[in-house]
C-alpha cells in the first residue's frame, strides 16, 4: 500500500473499545458469517480479511451500550470503496431501535462518509450532542455504490470517559 492514512487520534481522546459492554451489543441485519465483532473487536477489526456485512438489504442497525458514561468525539469507519457505508446516522441513548423507527427520530448526528473517510480518516462529530452517552446506535442507511450489501471493515469510536463508577469494580471494604 502506498500511503496508509494513519488514524491519528486527537489529543486526549481514547479508543472507547475498552468501555463497550459486550453483553448488550446487537446488530440487526448482519450476515451470520460476517458479524459485528469483525468490525468492532480489537484484533478482528485490524484484520483486513474480516469485515461486517449486511444480510437482507444494505441497511444495518448497530446498538452499542457502554459500561460507563462517555463523551464521543469522533468516529473512524473503514470500508471498501464500493460497498462501504455512505449515510450514517448516530443516535445517543436510544435503546432498542428498529428499522421502522430509525427514520422517525432525529439523529444526534448524521454523517455522509467520503471515500477519504473510508480509508481511515476520523470524522468529527457534534461533540455537544454526545456529552453523556450511555449507549450508541449506529444506523447505516446506504452505501457508496448503492449495492445490496454493505461492508464495513473497522469501526473505531474515539472519546473520553466521564469517570462514572463501573459497578463491577466496586469492592467490599475489608473489615479491620
Amino acid at each position, binding site marked *: 500500500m502506498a500511503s496508509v492514512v494513519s488514524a491519528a487520534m486527537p489529543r486526549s481522546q481514547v479508543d472507547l473499545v475498552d468501555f463497550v459492554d459486550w453483553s448488550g451489543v446487537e446488530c*440487526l*441485519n448482519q450476515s*451470520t458469517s460476517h458479524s459485528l465483532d469483525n468490525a468492532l473487536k480489537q484484533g478482528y477489526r485490524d484484520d483486513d480479511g474480516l469485515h461486517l456485512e449486511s*444480510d*437482507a*438489504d444494505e441497511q444495518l442497525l448497530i446498538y452499542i451500550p457502554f459500561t460507563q458514561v462517555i463523551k464521543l468525539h469522533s468516529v473512524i469507519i473503514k470500508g471498501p470503496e464500493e460497498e462501504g457505508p455512505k449515510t450514517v446516522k448516530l443516535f445517543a441513548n436510544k*435503546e*432498542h431501535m*428498529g*428499522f421502522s423507527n430509525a427514520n422517525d427520530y432525529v439523529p444526534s448526528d448524521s454523517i455522509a462518509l467520503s471515500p477519504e473517510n473510508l480509508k481511515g480518516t476520523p470524522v468529527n462529530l457534534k461533540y455537544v450532542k454526545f456529552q453523556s452517552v450511555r449507549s450508541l446506535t449506529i444506523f447505516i442507511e446506504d452505501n457508496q455504490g448503492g449495492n445490496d450489501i454493505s461492508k464495513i471493515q473497522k469501526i473505531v469510536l474515539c472519546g473520553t470517559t466521564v469517570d462514572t463508577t463501573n459497578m463491577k469494580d466496586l469492592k467490599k471494604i475489608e473489615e479491620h
Partner: protein
Amino acid sequence: MVLEATMICIDNSEWMRNGDYSPTRFQAQADAVNLICGAKTQSNPENTVGVLTMAGKGVRVLVTPTSDLGKILACMHGLEIGGEMNLTAGIQVAQLALKHRQNKKQQQRIIVFAGSPIKYDKKTLEAIGRKLKKNSVSLDIVDFGESDDGKPEKLEALLAAVNNNDSSHIVHVPPGPNALSDVLISTPVFTGDGDGGSGFAAAAAAAAAGGLSGFDFGVDPNIDPELALALRVSMEEERARQEAAAKKAAEDAAKQEKGGEQASSSHDATMAEPNSSSVPAVDDKRHNLTDDEAALLEQALAMSMDDPKSTNVAVADTDMSEATADDHELALALQMSVQDNAKDSPTQSEMSKVLEDQSFVSSILNSLPGVDPNDPSVKDLLASLQGQSESQQKQNEDKQEMRRISK
C-alpha cells in the same frame, strides 16, 4: 430453553369448517395451539405467547404476548369461523405485537397456521420474509388444509426468505387419521432448535407415539414412572452383579496372560457399567452379552464353586495386574512367576482352555485399547500359552467333568 416471545397466527377462515382433520380443521388447529402454548411456557417460564386471528372481519389480536397460560386458553373459546385469511397483514401485525413486547431480551418468533389457499404471489411473500429476517424474527409455518397448486412452493419461498441459520421451519401436514397436534409434536415447531426441547414435548411425544414400542418393560414411564424406574434399577443391579462376576473372572484370567491387557478389559467392564446405567434402553443391553462375556461368566460361576486356593491367588494377583497395565515385559515376567506358583491350580486349566481358543483370545486383544496383536511380544506369549496349555489339558479335563457333574 431459549427465551422467546411467540405470536401464533390462527386461520379462522371459512375453509376451517372442513372435516378432513378430525373433528374439524379448526378444532385440530385449536388443539395444536394449546399444546404449543403449553410447550413454550414450560420450556422457559419467562417465555411469552400471544395469539391473533387472521380471518374474520380482519386481523385481530386476541391476546398480547403473555406467560399466563390460562389467559391464552380462555381466549381460544368462542372463536368464530368466517371470512378469508389475510396472511400478509397477519404476519405484519404479529411483527408489530412482538416489537412492543415487554422483555426486549426475548427472541421473536411467529408461528403461522396456513390452512386456506394463499392468494398472494411469491414476490410479496418473499418481501415479507426479508423484512422479518432483517428484524431478526423467526417464522414457523404449519401448512395444512387446502393444498392448491403453488401453495407449498409459495410457503417454501417465504421460509427461504426468512430463514436465518435454520431458526425458521415449515411443516406440511397432509390430511389423515393423525391429529394435527400429534404430527406437530415431533417437529422442530414444538421441540425448538437444537437443544432438544422441553420435557413437556418429549413426554407428549412419548404418549402420542403410544403403546410398548418405545418402552422397556411394557410400562409407560409417563403413566407409571415409579414402576418403570424400579424395574430399570433392578435390571441394572442384576447386570452390575453379573458384570462384577465377569470382571473377577477376567482378572483371574489375567494372571495367566498379560496382566496389563486384562486390567484394561476390567477397566472396560467398569466403564461399561456407568455407561449402561445412564442409558434407559436397558432391553438392548440384555442382548449384548457377547460370547466372550458368556464364556467368562461360565468360568466365574465354575470358579466360585471351586476350592478357595484359586481365589486367594486371584486376589493377590489383582493388584499386580493393574500395575502392569502398560508394560509388556513386566507383564511377561509377572506371568511367568505366577505360572510357577499356580501350576497345579485347577483353575489354570479352565483358563488355558479358554485361552486356547485362538479366536477368543485375539478378539479380546483386538478389543482392548493399547494392545497391538501384531506386537512380537504378544505373539510370543500366545505361542507359549498354547504349548503350556496342551500339556495340562488332558489331565484336567477329567477333573473338570467330575466337578461339574457333582455340583
